[in-house]
């Protein structure tokens, strides 16, 4: 088992992997994408693999993710399989434009059926780097550079493909866009997926991202998504994480908002062995509003860590944040929510709440809400709780003839529902609710929809 390698040795191994394959990584990609790689790998070298004890990774040791042996695909695969034959979405009856990625590579074959409106651009980031040079140049890697993060830098150094999405000014998407990334292969795999999403002025769009593992290998998916939301745009980003328990998932989401824009992000973690989600939201112009929500239901020995950083850079912005976790068995969870109100960002409203339930004596939870405020005319609050199901409420339900198990389920569902109800796609709210209920009842197998039936 290679888990005992120390983080420095692993770091140098990865850097030398980069150096050996640089030519292949760069191949077919324009300079405007490749120029960031060297700087990124230097950043990765400087910061190393974050290990437990570092302030930002206080409760999460990334050597759990990086300390294993993975394979890499540096050459674009030739996808010939119809995705429908290998995968069926766990969220049925959802009327969406579906886009498929396989191991982080854009699946051009299957995506021709997505039936996207003509105005919307959806293509691989490789293609965008060549075709949409201005947009790409202006936005690619800009937000990542603002927050030098080890895992994001690692992604920048290695990233070769991912999703590019552009909603033009004034365009209102009627149906949500669903981006599905399938992880499959006969060997363990490290996937660096890189997405760039641009929502133009006055545009409206909803994106649902699902990650699925289709084979029982160790996967490490290190995804970076940069989203730029222009003036008056309304943008929703739903992330459903449902991978098997040997997989590791590192997700870094960067959002920059211009004036009067409104975003909603919702991260639902149903399954995943080791999950770390970083969310960076920058409210760069006035009257922007960010809603950041998350729900994680974890059991066994899973680990979920949600890190959020909301940057109130200008006055008159609002952020609402709510993260909830239900931990079962020997699961561990962590939440780190940082809110920064910069000098002169007056009239800021920033609210944060983190509530957690530990179901068993062996489940553990760590939370670290954090407010940094440099302006006086602001209203900011955070709240954090860790507890169990309210015995009084349970008794109340039981006294009305509802069985103990069912009553407990109802209360857990009600606890989770506070996050679910904020979803702005009615049908998705319903589906989310069903998924959560199935998950709570232990009925949702981690590979639902997978035809491999490996477990």
């Amino acid at each position, binding site marked *: 088992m290679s888990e005992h390698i120390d983080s420095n040795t692993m770091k140098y191994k990865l850097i030398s992997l980069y150096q050996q394959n640089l030519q292949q990584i760069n191949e077919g990609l324009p300079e405007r994408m490749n120029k960031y790689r060297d700087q990124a790998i230097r950043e990765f070298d400087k910061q190393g693999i974050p290990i437990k004890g570092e302030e930002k990774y206080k409760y999460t040791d990334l050597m759990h993710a990086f300390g294993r042996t993975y394979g890499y695909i540096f050459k674009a695969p030739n996808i010939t399989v119809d995705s429908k034959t290998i995968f069926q979405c766990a969220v049925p009856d959802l009327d969406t434009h579906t886009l498929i990625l396989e191991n982080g590579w854009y699946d051009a074959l299957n995506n021709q059926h997505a039936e996207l409106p003509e105005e919307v651009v959806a293509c691989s980031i490789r293609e965008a780097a060549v075709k949409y040079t201005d947009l790409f140049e202006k936005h690619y890697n800009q937000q990542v550079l603002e927050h030098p993060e080890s895992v994001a830098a690692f992604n920048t150094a290695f990233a070769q493909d991912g999703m590019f999405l552009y909603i033009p000014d004034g365009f209102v998407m009627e149906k949500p866009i669903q981006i599905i990334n399938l992880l499959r292969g006969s060997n363990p795999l490290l996937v660096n997926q890189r997405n760039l999403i641009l929502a133009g002025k006055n545009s409206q769009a909803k994106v649902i991202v699902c990650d699925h593992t289709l084979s029982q290998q160790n996967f490490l998916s290190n995804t970076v998504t940069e989203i730029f939301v222009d003036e008056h745009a309304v943008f929703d980003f739903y992330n459903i994480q449902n991978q098997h328990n040997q997989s590791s998932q590192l997700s870094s989401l960067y959002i920059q908002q211009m004036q009067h824009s409104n975003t909603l992000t919702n991260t639902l973690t149903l399954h995943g062995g080791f999950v770390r989600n970083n969310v960076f939201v920058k409210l760069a112009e006035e009257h922007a509003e960010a809603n950041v929500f998350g729900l994680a239901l974890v059991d066994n020995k899973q680990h979920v860590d949600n890190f959020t950083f909301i940057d109130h850079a200008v006055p008159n912005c609002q952020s609402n944040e709510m993260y909830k976790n239900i931990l079962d068995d020997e699961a561990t969870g962590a939440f780190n929510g940082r809110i920064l109100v910069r000098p002169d960002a007056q009239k800021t409203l920033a609210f944060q709440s983190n509530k957690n339930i530990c179901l068993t*004596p062996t489940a553990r939870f760590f939370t*670290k809400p954090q*407010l940094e*405020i*440099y302006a006086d005319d602001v209203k900011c609050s955070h*709240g*954090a*709780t860790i507890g169990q199901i309210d015995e009084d409420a349970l008794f109340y339900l039981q006294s009305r003839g509802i069985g103990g198990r069912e009553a407990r389920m109802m209360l857990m569902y009600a606890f989770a529902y506070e996050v679910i109800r904020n979803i702005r796609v009615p049908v998705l709210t319903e589906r989310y609710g069903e998924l959560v209920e199935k998950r709570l009842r232990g009925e949702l197998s981690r590979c639902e929809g997978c035809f491999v039936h490996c477990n």
Partner: protein
Amino acid sequence: MNEQDKILSEVTQSDYKYGFVSSFESESIPKGLNEDVIRIISAKKNEPEWMLEFRLNAYRNWLKMTMPTWAHLKIPEINYQDIIYYSAPKQSAKYDSLDEVDPELLETFNKLGIPLDEQKVLAGVAVDAVLDSVSVKTTFRDVLAEKGIIFCSFSEAVQEHPDLVRKYMGSVVPSSDNYFAALNSAVFSDGSFCYIPKGVRCPMELSTYFRINAANTGQFERTLIVAEDDSYVSYLEGCTAPMRDENQLHAAIVEIVAMNNAEVKYSTVQNWYPGDKNGKGGIYNFVTKRGLCQGKGSKISWSQVETGSAVTWKYPSTILLGDNSVSEFYSVAVTNHHQQADTGTKMIHIGKNTKSTIVSKGISAGKSNNSYRGLVKVSKRAEGARNFSQCDSLLLGDKCGAHTFPYIECENNTAILEHEATTSKIGEDQIFYCNQRGISTEDAIGMIVNGYAKEVLNTLPMEFAVEAQKLLQITLEGSVG
């Protein structure tokens, strides 16, 4: 410039009220820190061999450590070789009555508003006055001695009660605990020792005034409080320090041990020189305070009013080891000008059915930064632990910062932990409400700030509550009533 800005600018122009230097002679050793200096300190205090060993061990540990950088503070580099580690007023003989005490020393206390003789009579408070490093005067010893309570300076305790000191010193804060604790353990000059025997309820509030005097002298006191089964003691500590241009280092240790059903109440009012309005000078206050609820049903409560120091790094903590033990932490921290404070608490739940309450109120003005940093940890076997934390911040002015860094670590599912934090400024509607009832804006802000801090001030003993209110007012001078 609106009314509030005007008041705030007045605040930033107010000077430190207690800035003066008493020029009585003091006996110092040369600057610098090495094993010889530690031996000199130990020899000067006529300490037994084990004490010297303790100091040297701590010093060797300290050499291996580096100064912590995780706090939200900007601290200029400290040259530890540029500090005098021992300073004692020259006339250190014992006195029988106040008449024999150096008149200038008494005058110093008078300026501070703590006339020893008056306090003896009026307040009924026994004062163990530590001026710089050596205990000069201890009052009410006789009354306490009747009940078997030991209340004396630390050096005296080392001489007269070596067994007790040896048993408990370093048991709560080991000498290798952190950088500043190691430094203190190596060079501590004096402090207070308090021992409450079994079943005794201390009849009066015990209090000590610490004061940094001779220029360039770091003050390294050490306080040890031991409360045996079923005992009770309320201990007060208050500080003011004279104005000085160079930064002065202060690294103290407070250790509290509470046995079965014992209760210790520890109150602090800290008003050391915070530096002038340009951020020049001021005290660096790096304090390690920790209590151990060793016995069942024991209770330790911390109340603190922090208004002084240029830099404060202080986390009074409690280890809730005994079953059913309880701890409380009440804090008001005010920062103004360029002051920086990173303060809070740690509640470590280990025993069953332990409870802790944290109420922290931060007030920032001027260009200061005020952070709350707190840890609530529930260990695996701490069944039925309960915590409630509340930390509020009040901002006066748009150049200051208020931050909260709570850490909550839960390893037991029967725990119920709650944390809430808010940040706000004084509402214009609140001021308007007061104005229309004939209260001036200045008085209104004073009322609101005092009301905001009341929950904490109420936990202070009466004598202190008055002083604390005064300190709040002086710190926010001009804006507060």
